[in-house]
């Protein structure tokens, strides 16, 4: 990571040119972000939550804004091609020409953050302030903890350069038929972007959001994403992120969601790109009967690193959380799973389950799993499980004994292992896309394209 001094220059050079510079609200947000970054810095392994993902060896990553490559034809990923409301960002910068917002129902807004700021910095600042910020103090435990309060440097960095991103608001009772997509395309050889993604679904609203991060020629880029999510009473948000950037890219993301009474927040994260990719999901179940489903899958090989960190915070009673994360690790790849469930004293009748399973395909593959339950209420049902293992030798032999070549048999078993995660996804368009992307990744991992039930049954 570039030296702080360089960053200071960068901040001082870039700030005056950012949209809304000089407007009180935005200046304050950026200054706060910058101050937070200076205070916390880049997280080190001493910081709670960053023990297994070391950013130290990322020195040299350019923090300068990415410069898009000459704009060739860019094919855009989509969960429902032609049938989505879409905002596109090329190397972090909003691209109106590639975007297609389409006709939104009454009560729904979908804007690029840059557009919103340019239209009204004051309103944009007000919107930004509305969203929950990630908290570094993730537990209720008291006592000395040297790492506490130092995990927000990256969020600060995002705030310092606040300019790009997306804001989706869904009004009370409005149900969007078409998914909304945020598409991030990396074309630059290096450089950084710091988007802010905000989703606000008012009471009774319903929407599906797909977030894509893909490379179209992109290289050692750095995406530092901060998302804020609010799900109002009885609302439903189905959210999926497909992180498929270049193998040299760096991707760090933090999502903070609050879920009101009887509301549902589903989030799925696919991590198959990047030399280092981390998604940090915090969900706060704030109203009685709120639900969340957190699922994720990753595939890492080479010497790449994927980190899925989550905190599910049961604040209110009668809430349900279910988390399933499964991944495949090959070569010298390394994966990290950290999952914490907090059940606060008032959160009686909590139902919280967490499952983490890793499939290790080589002797040098590595998983660090840290499931944690912090329970302060007595009438709760909570469980967690973590397993790591190899492919089932018996199953492998059974398949081979029927004439299936060993590599195909392996690919079939890997696909079977990961398909289970896709089944966690409630929205069928998100699920279909997830399955297709998982198959594609297995194809690259094993060199084999396996039949799926869909192709076999012609469905």
């Amino acid at each position, binding site marked *: 990571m570039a030296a702080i001094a360089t960053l200071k220059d960068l901040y001082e050079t870039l700030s005056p040119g950012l949209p809304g510079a000089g407007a009180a609200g935005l200046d304050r947000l950026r200054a706060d972000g910058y101050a937070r970054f200076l205070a916390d810095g880049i997280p080190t392994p001493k910081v709670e939550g960053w023990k297994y993902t070391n950013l130290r060896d990322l020195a040299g990553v350019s923090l300068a804004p990415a410069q898009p490559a000459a704009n060739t034809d860019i094919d855009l990923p989509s969960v429902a091609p032609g049938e989505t409301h879409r905002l596109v960002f090329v190397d972090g910068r909003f691209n109106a020409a590639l975007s297609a917002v389409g006709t939104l129902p009454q009560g729904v807004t979908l804007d690029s953050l840059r557009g919103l700021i340019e239209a009204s910095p004051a309103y944009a600042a007000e919107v930004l302030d509305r969203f929950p910020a990630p908290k570094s103090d993730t537990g209720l435990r008291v006592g000395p903890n040297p790492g506490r309060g130092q995990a927000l440097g990256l969020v600060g960095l995002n705030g310092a350069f606040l300019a790009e991103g997306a804001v989706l608001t869904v009004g009370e009772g409005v149900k969007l038929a078409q998914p909304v997509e945020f598409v991030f395309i990396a074309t630059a050889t290096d450089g950084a972007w710091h988007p802010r993604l905000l989703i606000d679904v008012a009471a009774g609203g319903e929407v599906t959001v797909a977030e894509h991060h893909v490379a179209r020629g992109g290289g050692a880029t750095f995406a530092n994403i901060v998302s804020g999510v609010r799900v109002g009473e009885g609302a439903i948000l189905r959210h999926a992120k497909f992180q498929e950037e270049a193998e040299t890219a760096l991707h760090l993301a933090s999502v903070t969601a609050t879920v009101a009474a009887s509301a549902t927040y589903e989030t799925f994260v696919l991590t198959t790109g990047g030399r280092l990719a981390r998604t940090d999901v915090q969900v706060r179940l704030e109203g009685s009967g709120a639900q969340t489903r957190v699922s994720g899958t990753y595939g890492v090989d080479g010497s790449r690193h994927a980190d899925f960190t989550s905190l599910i915070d049961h604040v209110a009673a009668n809430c349900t959380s279910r988390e399933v994360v499964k991944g495949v690790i090959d070569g010298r790849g390394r994966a990290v799973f950290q999952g914490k469930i907090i059940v606060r004293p008032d959160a009686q009748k909590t139902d919280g389950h967490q499952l983490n399973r890793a499939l290790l395909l080589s002797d040098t593959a590595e998983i660090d799993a840290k499931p944690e339950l912090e329970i302060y209420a007595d009438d709760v049902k909570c469980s967690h499980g973590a397993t790591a293992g190899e492919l*089932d030798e018996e199953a492998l032999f*059974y398949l*081979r004994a029927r*004439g299936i*070549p*060993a590599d195909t048999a392996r690919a079939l078993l890997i696909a079977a292992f990961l398909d*289970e995660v896709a089944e966690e996804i409630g929205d069928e368009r998100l699920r279909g896309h997830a399955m297709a992307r998982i198959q594609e990744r297995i194809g690259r991992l094993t060199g084999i394209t396996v*039949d799926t039930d869909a192709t076999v*049954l012609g469905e």
Partner: protein
Amino acid sequence: MLEIKNLHATVDGKEILKGINLTINPGEVHAIMGPNGSGKSTLSYVLSGRDGYEVTEGSVTFQGKDLLAMEAEERAAEGVFLAFQYPVEIPGVSNTTFLKTALNAVRKHKGLPELDAMQFLKLIRAKAKALNMNDDMIKRAVNVGFSGGEKKRNDILQMAMLEPSFAILDETDSGLDIDALKLVADGVNSLRSPERSMLVITHYQRLLSYIVPDHVHVLAYGRIVRSGGKELALELEAKGYAEFGSPEAA
């Protein structure tokens, strides 16, 4: 068809097969009987190419080729089939995907065109019907949630689909009630032909009254200690295996 000569095999350094000799001609059905732990399943795994079974001596020639030099999948593609004593559950892989992948791999090996989805489904439905298996069973994950009998039928379905030239049935009768046994035996008998040979491993004579063997062998402590015609099975049923000694003697 199959010629086993002086076959010795070890598992985890322990010798289990201690010099098996057996010749099976095209169209013949041979039965192997013997006490528990005598090496029957070991023989079936050695023939089908399972990892971890080391052949220390001897040879196996299958249709003129060195069977032991082939990988498991190659043996299957060449026409060797093992119906497992304990069919394996494979969560997440449906029977249809499994069998289509297997059948097309075998067809490819034989130089035949692969079947498309329509052709495949038509074929599997017809074969499944004969074994009294419904659509639900063929679409479910391989053997997951299947009863013991259903698993055995599923293995026979796989055999019917792959049409091997040499099939080993390892205690396919165990865990079957009489109706299921008849179904399975009918399935097996319908595959009997002058070109197809079978090795039927069983503990009980019962199966052999449905699948009538040409030859019966007794495997005890890693060796074939006696061979005879189908009447040998009846004799064994009456007398048991006591006369074939103990492991210490072997």
